[in-house]
């Protein structure tokens, strides 16, 4: 199996997270194997936000969790601040993980309804025995304030009394309790109303600046990541299609899949004439992914070469890398 290539990797001191040849496979019944992530390599610089974008089932959540070793990848390296997390013994991994936190899609069900908001946000501090009781309480108040919630009003209430947007604020406060250096956000706004999405996206941006975070932002929607990302990686069936700056990705996508994803975003303008639906059908099964380019069964430009040979990532423009035999540029 060929990899997706390495042309897009950067060699610089401020790379805090470097994934190398990550493979995650799940055994399902009948000796079959789901190829969730197939040799992906990517890096993230300090203070950067990397967006990982792709359709349901492309492996984006699995990749995000592989960073935290939840579960650990079958093969590959996860270098975080120079340490390979896949090689760490359990205890060390546990403490390394406090530096990387995750925020999930469904804010309501990811919070324990039996706990008060104060307990939810303070729990990580308590587990790790950070500070005195009074320090912890002060820290919880500060966190709630920072995410735009009034501690007096929310501390003693339970999560089910809050709306989705407020629950997401609570999750974010909790994820920041241990002062992580990296935040992995998995579809943090897709369960929320549009009007609330913008509030949460702004909050994340604000927290990133305030706490000096590096972020990985996972989403199926290129419009949502536009406002928050510095670099975008488009994934399809466990492989990288394209990596580049937002400018490149939005104004001149080189991969046919990137372009189809962009065309699927609804245009809030009734006068806009949409062509036919950009992408028909759904991705094939990751149990038996297509040979060569995995996108070829849905690609309008597929040729025999695409079935025979897997395309490797190569640079088509400054800081724009595409894995395609017949790129649009």
């Amino acid at each position, binding site marked *: 199996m060929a990899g997706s290539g390495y042309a897009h990797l950067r060699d610089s001191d401020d790379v805090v997270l470097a994934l190398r040849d990550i493979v995650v496979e799940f055994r399902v019944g009948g000796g079959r194997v789901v190829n969730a992530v197939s040799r992906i390599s990517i890096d993230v610089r300090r203070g950067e936000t990397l967006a990982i974008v792709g359709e349901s089932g492309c492996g984006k959540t699995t990749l995000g969790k592989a960073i935290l070793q939840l579960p650990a990848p079958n093969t590959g390296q996860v270098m975080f601040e120079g340490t390979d997390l896949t090689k760490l013994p359990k205890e060390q991994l546990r403490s390394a993980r406090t530096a990387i936190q995750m925020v999930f899609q469904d804010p309501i069900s990811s919070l324990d309804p039996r706990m008060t908001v104060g307990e939810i946000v303070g729990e990580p501090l308590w587990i790790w025995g950070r500070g005195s009781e009074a320090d912890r309480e002060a820290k919880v108040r500060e966190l709630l304030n920072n995410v735009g919630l009034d501690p007096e009003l929310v501390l003693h209430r339970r999560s089910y009394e809050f709306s989705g947007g407020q629950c997401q604020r609570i999750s974010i406060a909790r994820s920041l309790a241990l002062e992580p250096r990296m935040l992995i956000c998995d579809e943090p706004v897709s369960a929320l*109303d549009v*009007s609330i999405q913008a509030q949460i996206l*702004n909050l994340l941006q604000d927290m990133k600046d305030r706490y000096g975070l590096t972020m990985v932002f996972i989403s199926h929607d290129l419009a949502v990541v536009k406002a928050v990302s510095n670099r975008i990686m488009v994934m399809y069936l466990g492989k990288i299609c394209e990596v580049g700056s937002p400018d490149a990705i939005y104004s001149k996508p080189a991969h046919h899949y990137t372009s189809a994803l*962009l065309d699927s975003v*609804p245009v809030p303008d009734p006068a806009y004439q949409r062509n036919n639906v950009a*992408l028909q059908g759904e991705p094939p099964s990751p149990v038996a992914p297509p040979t060569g380019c995995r996108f070829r069964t849905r690609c309008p430009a597929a040729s025999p070469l695409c079935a025979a040979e897997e395309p490797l990532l190569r640079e088509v423009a400054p800081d724009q890398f595409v894995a395609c035999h017949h790129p649009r540029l």
Partner: protein
Amino acid sequence: MTELFAVEDLRVQFSTPRGQLNAVRGITLSVRAGECLGIVGESGSGKTVLWRSAMGLLRGRKVTRTGSARLEGRELLTLTPKEVRQYWGTHIAMVFQDPMTALNPVRRIGSQFVEALIKRKGMHKDAAMARTIELLRLVRMAEPELLVRKYPAQLSGGMRQRVMIAMAIACEPKVLLADEPTTALDVTVQAQVLELLSDLREKLGMAMVIVTHDLGIVAGHTDRIAVLYAGEVVEMASTLDLFANTKMPYTEALLKSIPRLDGTSTDMMEVIDGAPPDPMAETVGCFFAPRCKYATDKCRHEHPELVDDGTGHFYRCFYPLGKQS
């Protein structure tokens, strides 16, 4: 044009331990034959309560409904539960955000369809199976003959949504009601499902109501839009006019909060700060005033009426946008 479905001064209150909750506060709107109406509002704006009660569904001791909701002149609010069930599926059909609520997880797709067709249409078993395959083809499912043998859990979210749409149109309803039909789906599948719904509406001549929190997704798929806020209609117009000639500050704010591909890449997105009013509280003035950047003293003390600008564009605001005052 004839009004197929008409809601008049509909009010819905819930009795709760904390007191009376006003979910819908006097809504009047209509849907014409073959038309597609979008009902847009934030969570809690009353959009689900509106259509559920209008369709005769919300009832019980804790619910007070007044006003009227008529389908082809027939009052729905006073139907008996049995009559409501007869209306459902034949005159009105629904598609929800979560298709699993409409599908039985332990029965094969085919047998669920066949049963429904036998029950509602009195079809013979073989004819019902043939019709099932035809319906699945109509919603563009590949290999319907294989699909009928599958269980819902074996399908992706997008495929389940198509199956539910096929089920909804099985009895050729006059109105198809879709409540957040694409919220749980990927953008790619969302585009497919919306296009499928528009296409079916044209083919079958149904009217359709799409209920959503996202103005962006209904822009290209509706003829008219009603924007709801705190249980009231605050703006209603043809889709083209609503976007080109927005009058309500609330609608304008909703439009600005949609993430866009063509927007300038500013660091922070525009947001509507704050939250809608507590539906339990007695509110005076314009309900949007606490969040409105144009609010004046008048707005805080007087409640604006819904007015027509003379072209069928309704708005509820003392200082509509686009007018020099």
